[in-house]
């Protein structure tokens, strides 16, 4: 295909790394087509680590806002020259991946056809294409969302024969090195520092491993607190690299580590894409289905209290029960298994309210399977929406290849109730909150399609799209209901 392509990704490290599968797909689909990438200039160091593109554009997200505050006309002039530079490239296609006013206006200024969040109404409003509309609908019921952010981005590009995936790094039998990323962006998704401290001690005791603390300079005090909390014997095995590595060096260190233990962070995504094994410790708003490490054979230890996943916004949680659910001892058990056997063959005793997931590929991308209690009702609903997504994209419905435990009585009843509600046109009548949650994305899809019609989406197109989602969802459910145990 002719013409240049620009991918706009202005979000942080983690999001940029999770955009790499899209870039790989675009390259694989049309290796000769000119591909360019626009990112936050602070992530420049990632340019050589990610998939190769023909040109990198940078937006000075650190400097421009300050300049705008100090000297508006100069900032205006700088943005104008810069935006004109992009516009003059004459892109045929612009991928706008961020749901933000900033990138919407940028896409509008650059011109050309836009995929993803498309500017409409003279640049004032955005239109989600059908695939993103489904993703948006699923955000309304995150418990059942089984679409990974990388796949959300990746499926904006045309389907191709499967693009190459990064391989897992093979490390020789040398002294074990376990890397820990102790901080995350939000307190709600952060495993307590005391837990990391105990974990570090256990790893030194049980594996005799070196422990590397990775992260930024701002996070360094936390690493120092961790080290102070250790006995001298443990402390000498724990190296604090926080703030001592740039992104290049961080990548090099992650490649050398046998395993990274981390919350939902940019470091975790970077490690996964580099091929380093990872064990995610996910709690609060973090859900492995959405932003777990992308690839095959990654593990996520997920705290799953009834309130999971909670909202990211707002202050600290008044009752952070999820923070104590995942114990350092259980994490240490898993790390030992993963280091010694490469997999978790024998499940350790998992603390109540937690799940252990392992990632795998299916026809849609990366999914996670619980190793402890198999599929429950909520998983089946999530899987059915995954099927709806595949149908929307013209792909085959992803199949479940993991041994499947028989459904419990209650789950089966819920499934039948859901099927009945769907036959009734999606009307719930008097049903349980669980069923309401299961049907929320369908309702949100309807509302989004209605909104889109108001800002210019063709009515037939909107209805076809909605019908496809409903049909895909029913097909997905049907497979579990009639097929019994797939």
């Amino acid at each position, binding site marked *: 295909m002719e013409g240049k392509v620009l991918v706009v990704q*202005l*979000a942080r490290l983690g999001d940029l790394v999770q955009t790499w599968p899209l870039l790989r797909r675009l390259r694989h689909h049309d290796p000769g087509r000119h591909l360019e990438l626009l990112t936050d200039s602070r992530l420049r160091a990632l340019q050589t680590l990610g998939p190769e593109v023909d040109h990198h554009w940078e937006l000075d*997200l650190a400097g*421009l*806002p*300050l300049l*705008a*505050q100090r*000297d*508006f*006309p100069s*900032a*205006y002039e700088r*943005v*104008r020259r810069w*935006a004109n530079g992009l516009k003059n490239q004459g892109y045929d296609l612009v991928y706008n991946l961020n749901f*933000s*006013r*900033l990138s919407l*206006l*940028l896409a*509008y*200024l650059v011109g050309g056809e836009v995929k993803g969040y498309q500017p409409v109404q*003279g*640049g*004032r409003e955005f239109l989600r294409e059908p695939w993103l509309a489904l993703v948006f609908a699923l955000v309304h019921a995150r418990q059942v969302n089984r679409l990974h952010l990388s796949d959300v981005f990746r499926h904006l590009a045309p389907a191709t024969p499967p693009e190459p995936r990064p391989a897992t790094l093979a490390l020789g039998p040398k002294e074990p090195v376990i890397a820990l990323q102790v901080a995350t962006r939000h307190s709600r998704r952060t495993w307590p520092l005391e837990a990391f401290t105990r974990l570090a001690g256990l790893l030194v005791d049980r594996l005799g491993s070196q422990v590397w603390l990775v992260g930024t300079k701002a996070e360094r005090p936390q690493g120092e607190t961790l080290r102070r909390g250790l006995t001298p014997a443990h402390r000498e095995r724990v190296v604090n690299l926080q703030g001592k590595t740039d992104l290049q060096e961080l990548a090099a260190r992650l490649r050398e580590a046998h395993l990274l233990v981390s919350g939902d962070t940019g470091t975790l995504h970077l490690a996964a894409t580099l091929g380093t094994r990872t064990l995610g410790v996910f709690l609060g708003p973090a859900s492995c289905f959405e932003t777990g490490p992308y690839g095959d054979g990654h593990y996520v230890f997920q705290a799953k209290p009834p309130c999971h996943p909670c909202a990211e916004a707002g202050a600290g949680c008044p009752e952070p029960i999820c923070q104590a659910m995942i114990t350092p001892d259980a994490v240490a058990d898993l790390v030992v298994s993963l280091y010694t056997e490469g997999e978790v063959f024998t499940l350790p005793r998992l603390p109540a309210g937690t799940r252990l997931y392992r990632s795998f590929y299916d026809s849609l991308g990366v999914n996670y399977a619980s190793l402890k209690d198999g599929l429950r009702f909520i998983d089946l609903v999530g899987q059915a929406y995954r099927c709806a997504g595949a149908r929307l994209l013209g792909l085959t419905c992803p199949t479940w290849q993991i041994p499947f435990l028989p459904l419990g009585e209650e789950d089966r009843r819920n499934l039948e109730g859901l099927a009945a509600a769907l036959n009734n046109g999606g009307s719930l009548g008097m049903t349980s909150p669980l069923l309401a949650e299961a049907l929320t994305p369908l309702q949100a899809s309807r509302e989004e399609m209605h909104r889109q019609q108001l800002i210019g989406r063709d009515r037939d197109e909107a209805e076809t799209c909605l019908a496809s989602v409903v049909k895909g969802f029913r097909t997905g459910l049907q497979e579990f209901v009639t097929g019994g145990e797939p």
Partner: protein
Amino acid sequence: MNYWEKNYEILKQQVPDLAETLAKTHIPADHQVLPSKTGLPSLKVGRQQLHSAYDPLAEGLAWVQAQDIEEAEPLVIFGLGLGYHVLPLLEAGREVWVVEPSAAVARLALEHQDLTPLWAQGGLRLGRDFQGLPPGARLLAHPPSRRLHPGLYQRLAAHLRGESGAGAYLRILVVGPLYGGSHPIARSCARAFSALGHQAELLDYAPFYQGYQILQDVTADKSTENRLTQELLTFLGEILVARVRDFRPDLVFLLAQAPVEPRLLRRLSSEGPLLAYWFVEAFQVFPYWRDLAPEVDVFFTIQREPFFRELSELGPKNFAFLPLAADPEVYRPLNLTPEEIRQFGAAVSFVGAGYRNRREFFPGLLDFDFRIWGSDWNLNSPLGPFIQNHGARVSEEEAVKIFNASRINLNLHSSPYHLAINPEGDYVNPRTFDLAAAGAFQLVDPRAQLSEFFQPEEEVALFHDLTEARDKIAFYLSHGEECIRMARQGRKRCLRDHTYNVRLEQALDLIADLCPGKLPQRSPPEKPLEQLRRGFPADHPVQAMLQPVPPEVEDLSQLVDTLRERDEPLTESEAIFWLLHEFQQGLERGRF
């Protein structure tokens, strides 16, 4: 017919508002008309002689001859005095306008001179009212008037030069006490300074009050308690110094009972700001003014003599009279629910603390439907059953409801030394202004200053003793329409003359008068949109974008809102503009 009647007759026909104002003007005790050596009256205001004590007529003529005046140019004279310097110009047939800072001086002039030609050949303006003065007129100053009011003179000069005259834009830090009566005054002051267009901020010590109270119970050892309290006060002072260093105010405006002492005031002063202290209490009762007055640049009082004499004897010359006022945002007429009227209303209400004179006076009123609100009352006394909420403090929100819900609001000024009404009471308490602003009917005891602020029996009702109080309560309870009329008049007067906005504007003028040239002449900060217009060349596309923006749009957020509402596709300028606004928003919330 005397001069006043003659002047008033003509003035009433030509400028009825001014005539009414002057008719109601009360002459303060420090305005003295004294005969000069030639027998003609001369005038002294405070210690300033406005005319020659020897021959004011000759002095006025000499002043006119000394002015270098072009033929036929209109004249604006700052300061009327008793008019000796104005009359020769009127006689020469000149167009003459006079701006007199003080209504009392103007009233005295009209009592002692025939100024009728002034109304035909020009006019008189009072205070800051510069309306209708001929643009480009020649400004002449009556030197003693200018000495008394240099701030207002500068303002007038700026006005005649065609400058906005809005005055300088100041950063003002208002400092209140931890608690007590001057705390709400401090809040109102900060609000009023802001309303006057300044950047004003209240350093609110109220959150520390609890800590201060706790200290009182820490130990039975008095000297330890004193030491701890002293350390808390030192700490509060450090907070003030830190705030001054950060906010860099031009003026620190301190209210009575603010936790400051002389050493701290000297430190604050060395940081650069001008210090003004508003001593809103009785100097006879609270002697701490002796320590503070010499340390500030301007010391405002709510009493004149003999306080002024004592201040003069102490040393400082930088004091001025600044009476209390009301905050009409707080004290306002309310539409109360029947439930609120039941809860807060009564035939007769009183809000205030249980001072001795009130405890002595109120037992004579217990046969009325009477409610007493406030603290420091003895519940085990005949007044006990009349005291509401077990003598709890009354918040401003409650007070304004009580004022509105009660048919008669009694206002008996406090006195720790008297049995009932203080016969020497001079200053007017805040409640007088608050009640007037609330549009509530009040029955108040006489005060020397009262008639300067409110017309007795027209705008407020007075009682001189218990018998009169009882008679008037009985009368007004059966003449509700009279109460409503008087309350309405009182509120009108209060909103015109006695709001904190009015008062603090006077305060700033007084500061400019007492400390000429000390306050910076800084222009108000440019509005963001004006700044933007100035930042781009005239032919820049951004100017075209800004062209249709309505004048009420002042900042970038509002401008972006107008972009949202337009129909045409965003132009390049609009999109870039919006994008830059997003940058700024992102910077504020810490993410994009």
